[in-house]
């Protein structure tokens, strides 16, 4: 046997071992890096918004069956930013103890709609969804009625449970 043949002969099992190890090392690094990289991308993506009760204000004086946009300070937590921002809700008072509270977010694609008193409609400026005072869809692309929020009265002061829902779908699912 020549020297070259000897090396090749010796190598056949050695080489397959080396190939296996190269692949294994590569796989180890790919997994040890790849899984954490994906984990970091997911990050806080799937944390849920905790619904929070917030006091909106005195509603004694609201006119019956006339939507009012009430704004209130709300402590938001945006990752490492913590600040008080202004949120708003649409409140329709039916009687002194019966009211409806609508989330201000259009269930179509998340814009903020407005009340148009002359037509007695809520209209979203983004894609033209139209809702009645009861939140029913009257026109436009909205997939479901306006989202209502849970509320309670502490005396005359309205408190609402602020939460957001997935938009663009038929079901009302909390985000």
């Amino acid at each position, binding site marked *: 046997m020549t020297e070259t043949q000897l090396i090749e002969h010796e190598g056949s099992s050695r080489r397959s071992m080396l190939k296996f190890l190269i692949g294994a090392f590569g796989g180890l690094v790919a997994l040890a890096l790849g899984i954490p990289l994906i984990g970091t991308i997911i990050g*806080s993506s799937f944390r849920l918004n905790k619904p929070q009760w917030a006091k909106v204000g005195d509603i004694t004086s*609201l006119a019956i069956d006339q939507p*009012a*946009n009430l704004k209130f*300070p709300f402590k938001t937590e945006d990752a490492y930013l913590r600040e008080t921002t202004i949120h708003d809700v649409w409140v329709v008072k039916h009687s002194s103890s019966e009211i409806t509270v609508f989330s201000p977010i259009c269930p179509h694609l998340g814009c903020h709609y407005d009340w148009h008193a002359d037509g007695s409609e809520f209209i979203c*400026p983004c*894609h033209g969804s139209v809702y009645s005072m009861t939140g029913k869809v009257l026109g436009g692309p909205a997939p479901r009625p306006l989202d209502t929020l849970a509320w309670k009265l502490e005396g005359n002061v309205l408190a609402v449970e602020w939460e957001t829902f997935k938009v*663009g779908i038929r079901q009302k699912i909390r985000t």
Partner: protein
Amino acid sequence: MFSKILNWINDRWPLNAVIRWSLEEEMPGGTSYAYVFGSCVLLIFLLQVITGLWQLLYFVPTVDRGYTSLNYLRTEIAFGWLIHGLHYWGASAMIILVGLHILQVYVWGAYKNPRQLTWLIGVGNLLLTLSLGFTGPVLPWDERGFWEAEVAVSSAGTIPILGTLARNLLQGSPILGQLTLSRFFFLHVGILPGILILFVLLHIVAFRKSGISGPWNETKRKRIGSFWPDQVFKDATVMTFIFVVLVGLAAYWRAPFAGPLDILQTFYIPKPEWYFLFFYQTLKAFHGVLEPIGTIGIPLIVTLLFVLLPFYDPGPERNPGRRPVAMTCFFIFIAWVLTMAVLGFYSKPAATVAGTQTVTTAATQTVPSSPLEPSSQTPSAAKPGSQLLNSLGCMACHRVDGKGGAIGPEFAAALLKGKSREWLITQIRNPKAHFPNSIMPAFSSLTDEQVNDVIDFLLNIAQSEKASPASITKATPPRTGSAVTPAGAAPSAAVVTGRQGPPGPASFVIGNVDLGEYLFKQNCEQCHGPQGKDKVTNPGSTDGTVPPLNPIDPTLFNKNAQAFVNNIDPYIQHGSIPAGPNPVLRMLAFGDTQSLTQQMITNVEAYVLQLNGVDRAQLSDPGLQPHLFFWLVVLAGFAILVGGAGIRLARGRRENPKGTKPL
């Protein structure tokens, strides 16, 4: 010396081989201006990479500083206007050129065997380009960027089954905020350009392997052209032209300043960039449960039609005249995109179409989170309330005992009769709760004590005037009365006093003129007149009229936008009381009372400056004046054209010394 260096390099790195590989190519059918699109896309892409990187020297991707940091680059850094302008217009140019390139390949049938893979990579490039065009405008997180992100993330959420996953991953946190912006930044600046660079290289390698497809006519194909320098000259000519156009656009047609984000500005109508208008308009046709068909179904189907094209249309025929089905589809597609884009461009929200646009109070209304305790003060202790009525500017709109403005109703017994303390609290804190169309600012930052003082005063009026209801008729609407100008009082003597204070946060931000105009109409026009032009009478003031804003008092005017804003901002923030014995109209403290948000004040200021011929976004350090720079580039471009033509002629003469026309 130079050739020695080249040899040294070539011994160690295949420089000549790479250059030959990239430049030496025979072109069946000869060179053509129809083939320039690919090279132009490459040029624009490199331009986008460079200008994009350079913007990172100044731009920070945060929800509170993104817009201001970008504007700092755009207005206060030498050539910042150019860097940003090239990137902004380059994005549009790239989408147009990628579109033309892909349409040309379609018409020429150049996606057919053996170029299927080149086509596939090309479709990948189109999608990456669109993704970049989609993630980019979000980054300043301004009025435009935020809403685009909101609609984008929401659209992703409508994907069946995978919607939640897509939405959550894109949003990055339970709310649309900083982490969402970071993700768009990560995609736009890191991931997407990285993949695109790789895809462009793959595309060029695939293209070099099969070369251009050339004309479909076999006899025409016999004529052979060369890529270098003939085609490169044509490429360079068009590239130079495009570059000069981009510089011209950056110099003369600036990207808009969308204004800082303010979610409470519900009168802002978000619309996507022009290149997504066709999709935006198409989306409107799919209502309710059909929504996912619009948001996901159509993009998916169109993408699949593009991706699979070489496989469901494998026939070798390339002549468009003999591909009637393909050409019909082509024209239908073009017609759809163009029609929808034009409709989308001119579309208005339903509210405006129906003519039912309501008057929105431009007010940040904060309702106190705790109920107000009824005041223990007796009506006789109502003195602080009367002072507050003056200092808060209530009297600018309301009258007491015949004195005051005529915009709101008079504070008389008839008005206040039967109103409870609670009703009045809500009316002061949040007038829209009672009157959705009210233009009264919400005095949300007053302390409970102040509100109670004002109400004590009002209830006192209600009681005291019960005896003399005739006093209601004493009211004289000041706007119809003649100007009360004391004789000899020069207008310049109209020293304005009021609560003084420094400019607020609004003064350092560049607002949006259009939003400012809308807000001006809602909040300022009553006293300052349409476009700030009218001389609205103000009885009891030294001037006799409200100071006009157009043109504004010369002592407030300044050619420098920042100095101008610093002059007017304190008035908008803290209000002012005109000089005079008893001025009826006073400037409201829009900032201090939070009846306008700082973002809204920013927009109003941009509008007031524009009324006076000063650009709020003026360049304080342009490097070179944009128009001068543009004409220098035009000159340079012309010189390059001449040089390129020279090379081409010289080569032709060398190869055909007898003067025969080169092939």
